C-alpha cells in the first residue's frame, strides 16, 4: 500500500491529525466541564447579607424585596441577571454563570451572585422533611 498516493481520500497522517484534534478537544472539554456531578447553587447577597440561595437546577425567574427590581433567571446554562434598574447594566452583560466560584456583581445595587457547590451532600436529588 502506498501511503503517499495523493489520490487516496484519507492518508495515515490525516488520521494522526484527526486524532490530535480530537485529543485537544477532549482536553479542553476535560478542563472546562464539570464532572463532579455536584449540585450547585447561587448565593444572592445584597450589602454583604445573604438574600437567597437558589439551586441551579430550579429553573425560573426570581426576585427579592432586598434586591429591588433585579430579576435573576436560572436556566439551562446557569444563572444570570435578566433585569436590573442600575445605570450601567454590567450585571446583565456578565451573562450566565454556572461554575463554582463564578460571580456576577452589580455595584450600584450592592448585589452579588456567586455560584457554589453544595457542601457535603452534593448529589442529593431531593430533601424529605
Amino acid at each position: 500500500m502506498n501511503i503517499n498516493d495523493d489520490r487516496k481520500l484519507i492518508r495515515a497522517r490525516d488520521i494522526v491529525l484527526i486524532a490530535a484534534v480530537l485529543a485537544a478537544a477532549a482536553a479542553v472539554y476535560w478542563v472546562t466541564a464539570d464532572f463532579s456531578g455536584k449540585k450547585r447553587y447561587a448565593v444572592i447577597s445584597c450589602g454583604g447579607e445573604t438574600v437567597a440561595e437558589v439551586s441551579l437546577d430550579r429553573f425560573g425567574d426570581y426576585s427579592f424585596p432586598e434586591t429591588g427590581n433585579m430579576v435573576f433567571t436560572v436556566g439551562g446554562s446557569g444563572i444570570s441577571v435578566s433585569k436590573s434598574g442600575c445605570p450601567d447594566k454590567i450585571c446583565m452583560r456578565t451573562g450566565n454563570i454556572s461554575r463554582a466560584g463564578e460571580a456576577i456583581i452589580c455595584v450600584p445595587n450592592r448585589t452579588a451572585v456567586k455560584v457554589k457547590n453544595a457542601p457535603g451532600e452534593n448529589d442529593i436529588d431531593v430533601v424529605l422533611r
Partner: protein
Amino acid sequence: MARRFFRHYNYNKIAGTVSAAALTILLCSCSGADKTASSQSFVFDTYSQITVCGNDSEDVLSEVGSILSEMSGDFDLCYDMTANELPQNDLYCDCLSKTRELNRRYGNGINVFCGKLTKLWGISTDSPRVPADEELAAVLAELPDALTENIPYGAMLDFGAVSKGYACDKVFEVLEKKDMDYGIISLSSTTLMYGKKHGGKPFRTGLTNPLTGEGYAGIIETEAAFISTSGGYERYFSPEGTNDKYCHIMDMTTGRPVETDFASVTVIVSADVPDGGILSDFLATMIFSEGTGNIDKWLACDDFQVVAISADGGVYSNCEGLELNESGGFYYEYK
C-alpha cells in the same frame, strides 16, 4: 521530521478536518440536554418541586402541575360533609376506598373521618388551641369507624395522612403513560422518584435531621420509589407559656396529638408496588404514631423499608441503601 510530516498537506483539507471534528464535539455535548423541565409551587399546603425528564417534558410538567394543584384543592385539609356535598368526585371515592383497604390490612390508626378532631385542635391553622376534655369527648363519641362504608351525615374528612401519597400515585400514572425517562416529584414529606436517572445512578434522598429540623440525618439511595416521612418537628403547636408540644398527628383513641417517642419515621416503597404512594404515606404516619414499642413488627416486613429515628437519636431501620451522616455534632447509630 515535523516539516516532512506536514510537507504534503493541503491546508484546506486540514481546515475541513478541524471543523468536522469541532462540529462532532459540539453535537455530542448538546445531545441529551434540555429534556429536563422543572418547576416549583405551593400545593397540599407545602412547597413542591417537580422535575421531569423525557420527551415533551414541558408538556408533561404542566400536566403534572395541574393535576397536583387540582387535587390539592379537592383534598384541602378538611372536607365538610354537612353541606350536602357527599363525594361526587371520583378521585375522592377512590382515595377513600384505598385508605379503607390499607386500614383493613394495617390497622385503624389512620382514620380519614377525623376532620372534626383536626378542626378542634387547629394545629396547622393560625389559631391552634388545646380543647377542653368535654369538647374532645363529644367529638370522639361521634367519630365514625375508619372502616365504615356509609359516610355519616355531618362527618368531616381529613385526608392529611394519605393525600400527598395518593397524589404521587396519580402523577406516577401520568409519567408512565408519557413514558418519561425519569421524574422527581417532591411534596416535602412525600416524594416520588420515577424511572431511571441517566447514567444509571440511584436516586439520593436527604433525610432531614428531625432533632434539629435542619441538616441531614442521612441519605437514602434507592431505585425508583415512593418515600414518605412523618414527623412532629415541622408542624406542631406549643401553647404560650408552656413547654408542651402538640404535633399535628392525632391519636384516634384519645383524640389528642399522638405521644410518640419517634422524632421521624420514613417509609420507602418500591415504585413497582401498585399504589405505593398512598401506602408509604399511610405507613409513615401509622408507624410514627405507634412509637418504638411496635417497631420490630414493621422492620420485619419485606415489602417496604423503614428508617425510624427516635427522639433520643436512635435509628431503627431495615433499609439497605442508607448512609448515616454526622449532622450537627450528632451521630446516629443503628439499633
